[in-house]
């Protein structure tokens, strides 16, 4: 049951009706049941993986909590200890809880790695063992929906307990809801326990405006997903499937189209999840902040898939940067490369590792690994060449704040991201490299704009015209969001007739121009697979 199907609409309508009719104390139970039904409908018996992860995380979390509490109480009961002894005692407790934390993380990761990366490992093992005359069976498993998301969610929960940021949950049933909350389980955003759990457990009375705002956001998500992403996806599929046919700007356009598709698909899905949660009275974190207005790759990654970026920052980057080996490395590099570079090199390395992990998180394929390396490499090289760029800008008398320069930076970022995405979307590294090089073959050739090439990609002229209008609309809305204009509040201030006309217009536009129904093949969300 994908997000953009009629059964899903029926499912959420029924869930919402139940949610607002049961006694308020039971609202979370409705969400829990709905989440497990949703998960069952999508993954059937793989629901066991979610249940195992939930149970492991819950009990390990409690264990960590108990140890921390025991340590605190033990310390309280021993007022006679000196400061040094107290410090030693705390370190002992921390060491113990750390071991439990590592156990919990390993349990969670084992499910993810076991199911998602088993194929990669078994293929690798087979490659090595075949030289010695052994055969290792290939392991391929079906993936439960959202496993990459709830695994990170579980890890952050355990780490936050260990860090003393949150108390372990005492109610297994409620914790099951936190781990399985269906609007966000498909493709995020990756929530933090502190931000989400209590909202899920609290009761939420029916609030007309909040519900309409939520539905509006969902409609916007459907628009981006069905009208833009799934339509653009037809052309993207054709272009990436026939790379040798394209060259020059058309090849780059293919990657740019993919960028548009991905944004429509992913941000559309997030809007549906956030909108639906708003209907329930739950605020999910935003996962996108107008990413295509970014002026650098580093900024882009702060605006794109924000919850993953934040997660990586809090649970990988900082722990790595502040770890003993990295602090020692920093000391050494300062001696060798001087204060400026020496100080930064360890953090560059941590950044690089983070991006490689982001790539690997996307999937057990080399292309994602390459995708991570490319993004990490671009960011690190950007940092390294910071001074050179500054000198060039100064020599060229470029006004940093001028509109022209800002637009140039945005376009440049989009183009660089598009190049990198050839690895993300391409069917393997070889094809991605082929596409990348084909951009420089006859790069001046713009004939594809007029010779009908675009209409041989599975879309007709009317589709392209529609896409131009739709993408422009998304761009305009993003621009308003960039200027902190709330469109939904603007609509809410209008007269009821105009307001309803807008609602009907939006619904019918999606129904008519959306790529859905039996005339098309159903397209799931692209981030479901991660």
């Amino acid at each position, binding site marked *: 049951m994908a997000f953009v199907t009629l059964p899903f609409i029926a499912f959420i309508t029924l869930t919402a009706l139940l949610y607002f009719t049961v006694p308020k104390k039971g609202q979370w139970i409705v969400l829990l049941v709905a989440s497990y039904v949703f998960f069952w409908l999508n993954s059937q018996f793989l629901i066991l993986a979610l249940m195992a992860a939930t149970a492991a995380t819950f009990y390990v979390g409690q264990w960590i909590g108990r140890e921390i509490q025991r340590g605190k109480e033990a310390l309280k009961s021993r007022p006679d200890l000196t400061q040094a002894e107290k410090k030693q005692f705390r370190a002992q407790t921390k060491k113990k809880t750390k071991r439990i934390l590592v156990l919990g993380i390993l349990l969670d990761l084992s499910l993810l790695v076991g199911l998602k990366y088993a194929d990669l490992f078994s293929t690798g093992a087979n490659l090595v063992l075949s030289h010695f005359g052994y055969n290792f069976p290939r392991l391929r498993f079906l993936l439960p929906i959202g496993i990459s998301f709830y695994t990170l969610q579980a890890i952050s929960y355990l780490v936050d307990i260990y860090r003393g940021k949150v108390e372990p949950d005492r109610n297994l049933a409620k914790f099951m809801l936190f781990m399985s909350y269906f609007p966000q389980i498909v493709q995020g955003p990756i929530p933090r326990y502190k931000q989400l759990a209590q909202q899920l457990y609290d009761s939420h009375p029916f609030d007309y405006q909040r519900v309409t705002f939520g539905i509006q956001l969902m409609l916007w998500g459907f628009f981006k997903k069905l009208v833009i992403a799934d339509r653009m996806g037809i052309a993207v599929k054709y272009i990436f499937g026939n790379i040798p046919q394209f060259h020059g700007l058309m090849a780059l356009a293919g990657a740019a189209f993919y960028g548009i598709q991905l944004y429509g698909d992913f941000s559309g899905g997030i809007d549906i999840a956030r909108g639906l949660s708003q209907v329930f009275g739950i605020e999910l974190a935003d996962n996108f902040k107008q990413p295509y207005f970014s002026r650098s790759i580093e900024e882009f990654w702060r605006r794109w898939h924000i919850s993953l970026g934040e997660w990586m920052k809090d649970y990988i980057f900082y722990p790595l940067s502040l770890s003993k080996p990295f602090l020692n490395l920093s000391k050494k590099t300062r001696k060798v490369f001087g204060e400026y570079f020496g100080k930064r090199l360890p953090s560059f390395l941590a950044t690089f590792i983070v991006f490689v992990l982001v790539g690997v998180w996307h999937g057990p394929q080399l292309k994602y690994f390459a995708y991570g390396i490319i993004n990490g490499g671009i960011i690190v090289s950007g940092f390294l060449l910071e001074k050179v760029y500054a000198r060039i800008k100064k020599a060229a008398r470029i006004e940093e704040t001028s509109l022209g320069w800002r637009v140039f930076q945005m376009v440049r970022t989009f183009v660089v991201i598009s190049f990198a995405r050839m690895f993300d979307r391409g069917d393997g590294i070889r094809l991605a490299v082929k596409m990348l090089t084909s951009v420089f073959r006859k790069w001046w050739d713009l004939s594809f704009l007029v010779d009908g090439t675009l209409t041989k990609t599975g879309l007709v002229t009317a589709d392209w015209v529609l896409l131009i209008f739709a993408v422009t609309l998304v761009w305009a809305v993003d621009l308003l969001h960039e200027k902190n204009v709330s469109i939904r509040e603007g609509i809410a201030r209008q007269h009821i007739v105009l307001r309803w006309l807008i609602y009907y217009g939006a619904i019918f536009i999606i129904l008519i121009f959306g790529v*859905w129904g039996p005339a098309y093949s159903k397209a799931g969300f692209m981030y479901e697979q991660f």
Partner: protein
Amino acid sequence: MKNLCKAAVFLVLGVILFCAVIQKPFINSLDRIEQAVANFYEEPKRDLDALYVGNSRVYTAWQPALGWHDYGITILTYATPNLPIAAYDYVIEETRKRQGDILFIFNLPAFNASYVKSNDIHYTVDTMPFSLKKLRLTKELIDINGADGMDTLEYYIPFIRFHSAWKELTERSFSEKADGMKNSVYYPAFLKKSTSVASEFTDDQLAEIEENALVVQPNEEELVETEVEIYDEMQAKENLRNFLDYCEKNQVKVLFINPPMTSIEKNRTEVLKEIVQERGFEIIDITDASEIGLNLKKDYYDNVHMNIHGSIKFTKYMGSLLLEKFGFENKHGQKKYRSWDRAYEKYCSVIGPYVMDFELEHALRSTKIKSVKGLTLTQYLKYVYLKWDASSKAEGYRIYRKSNRADDLSWRCIGEVDAETCVFMDEDAVLKKGKYTYTIVPFCETDEGRTFGNYSTKGTTIDIITVQSELEKTEE
């Protein structure tokens, strides 16, 4: 509570808007099928002699407007590409409510199709007005088709399938009115594969004609193959027996027709024919195409569907036969049937470009009168001067003209001269810039009447420059 009421009103209004406004043009995009039903419902009450019900072989054969013109009879068709047998009783009941106890004509081979494909359900029910009976029929067709679960939803809400047709919507999709052609057909395959002059038309003109008939034709070869695969003799017999039971029980006046068909079909239909005859129902057997002058190569656009020429011959033959058999009143000149006159006019204007001259199709013809040679066209200010070489055995000539203007696409007779006069001055309305095409048709008078000879269907074309500019040049 206030908000709940608001939400309810919003929902109800939305559903009404959807059903009455949004969904309609998409169903109308079914075009010919939509027209078949729209024409049926626009027909004034109690003015039909008969209803010819069935599949694509019905509407490519019987041309109601022509039947009216030639015999003054009002026999409408109710046919969709593969109207399922299960829908026959629905059509009969709807017709009887509006037209009374009229004659129903069915093609017997149609009973061989015991399957119902997805598109057949859409073609059958989407354009029917809403009623509980329609819902029951939809359910019945879905059951035969075998669809289940969510897949059945598209038959109750056809928008689910057809919303993607937004690119094909035309002005006509938004029109509620039927085309007034009384289901006389003019879709591209039917016209294009005729011995037509269509190739002479510009792409724009062809597109304009085709725009009136957007439904993509199924691949008939595939259809035949599929039929072969899933033909079920027992089921076909049962369907026919059930239908005959229904007709007997409800005293429906029925006539079965065995039209010209392929050898495979002949064998299959033979079994059905026996059942019909055993039960005492009337059947007209015209499986021998040559009997009605049908040429399988020239009068069909594929192996089972007649083209425009075939349909004219079939209508002419069947009309005479039905008139003779049932003694229908010739209603020409009656005020009540003006819409049939208009339908014929429209029909002629549409098919005009495809048959040299509609009139000539019905006239006596002789290949012994050779076509004229050496036609030259010269513009003299407002006029076009035509000159040609005499044709042996010709006793006179008819001059035909058409142009590339939208209102003048079909051949039109603009004059007649005797055998000695091999020139003609077209003084008639050559005022606008454009391409004008002429052809000369020789004829002679015989004992049987005027007989027309060969002629160039392509004709000779002249580019007319604007008369005004030519005049100005002359004055200078």
